[in-house]
């Protein structure tokens, strides 16, 4: 089980996966919007999305949990 975390502070712009979906290493799973830039957040390992902790529009701080992958 691995938690994918925000790499920097910003707003959740897009959540690209759904609970139960399979993801691959390097795949973009969330895009944050910060400093007027799109910040892609990628999966660090293959697995199945167990839980999504955030909604689009939420503010997240660096290291906040975004998604849990099993």
């Amino acid at each position, binding site marked *: 089980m691995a938690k994918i975390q925000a790499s920097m502070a910003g707003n959740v712009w897009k959540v690209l996966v759904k609970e139960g979906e399979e993801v691959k290493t390097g795949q973009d799973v969330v895009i944050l919007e910060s*400093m007027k830039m799109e910040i892609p957040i990628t999966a660090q390992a293959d697995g199945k999305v167990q839980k999504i902790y955030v909604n689009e529009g939420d503010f997240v701080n660096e290291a906040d949990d975004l998604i849990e992958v099993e």
Partner: protein
Amino acid sequence: MSETDVKTSYQDRKERVLKGGQEKYHEKNKEAGKLFVRDRLQLLFDQGLQAEDGLFANVMAGDLPADGVVTGIGKINGQRVCVMANDSTVKAGSWGKRTVEKIIRIQETAEKLRCPLIYLVDSAGARITDQIEMFPGRRGAGRIFYNQVKLSGKIPQICLLFGPSAAGGAYIPAFCDVVVMVEGNASMYLGSPRMAEMVIGEKVTLEQMGGAKMHCSVSGCGDVLVNTEEEAIEYAKKYLTYFPGNYTERPARTAPQPPADFEKTIEEIIPKNQNAPFDMYQLIDRLIDKESFCEVKKLFAAELITGFGRIEGQPVGIIANQPRVKGGVLFHDSADKAAKFISLCDAFHIPLLFLADVPGFMIGTNVERAGIIRHGAKMIFAMSEATVPKMTVIVRKAYGAGLYAMAGPAFEPDCCLALPTAQIAVMGPEAAVNAVYANKIAALPEEDRPKFIQEKREEYKEDIDIYRLASELIIDDVVEPDRLREELAARLDVYMSKYMIFTDRKHGVNPV
């Protein structure tokens, strides 16, 4: 003693010393994937050591061959290099009086010969039993660090970390220009996990607290993470090709190579949308000779890329924002990373190439508490002081202090170039319109707002149009993306005779 006895005695002693410590320690090292110190040196040098001193150090003790360290001189890629290499089969590579003296002497030798010094570190630290002889005095271990500081910028100093570098010993890598760490075996720490538990009550593993991966990705004390000792040695050999033997010489130019082949052109890989991510490595690969990239701190503060490359054979130090990671925004760690890299290149006459695609420095509580202003100042300080040829390319954008930190026009680059789609401004159009017209926007009826905002953004874009900046001589040239390599090669060639003394003073007061 008869003549035969003298010879036998000599050969016996020498053979024993050359074998290092007890067999069980050799076995233990082998299991951990560690090579014997003399095998490491065989791999590192073209033809082994040409001269070795202190082979019989502490020979009278009987069980401390060479006193746990090999020091000598040889050639790497035909270039003269001094080395000190711990032997972890001898009392875990710990330092006694003669170990320290040998290290100090090879430093003095490197200074006199004006050649690079490589430290192959694999040591448990000081021998507490010998402390009075090796710790506090004028030629005690402190002298090693004093010498390192003195040699810094004079000759390249490289650390290959194959095992622990504990307590005081951890400062050997800290004062080197670059530190290569072997995953699983290399570590740096001031107090061991056992000591941490005893003294502060923390329970932690060595890998978590001071392992190679942690140092190369979190603390920044390590620069290059490798899987094997062979890889570490290969890296050091490649790294040295970008460097002169000392600060009075220039790095060697090699035979020019074309860049690697790519399907997409530079114009095709750079998104038109300023806010979209792209992979800066793809641009770097299109600008430099193929297979010439040698990266430093790849895993640390990846929003900024630092590494050496060659353009038409000429070594350059590249500092590039990486929009793929954290939007290419500058953070405290990336500024710190850039400051050291710039200072390293400047010390050894390696021209600097800044590839700017930067929305600015990060804002918010976290980074202010981390001292982003202080760290940003370090980067700007090092970049300002650098007197090597400095070339700046505004790839897509340089906003705010990001323009300054990436060697913008005010910091005396030899040229500030821009691609035709680039933007330079205090801030991007979205933020600027909000900042200037916030009250006015709020006063408008909601349905009129989008149109007003769009109009103002367009006006703003015209105001910061790149040709306007070229017209005002703010940038020196606008370059077509697919001609950029050619342009940089031509300019590098003409800037090679640059001679500049930054200013007259004892030294600046670094914001560290």
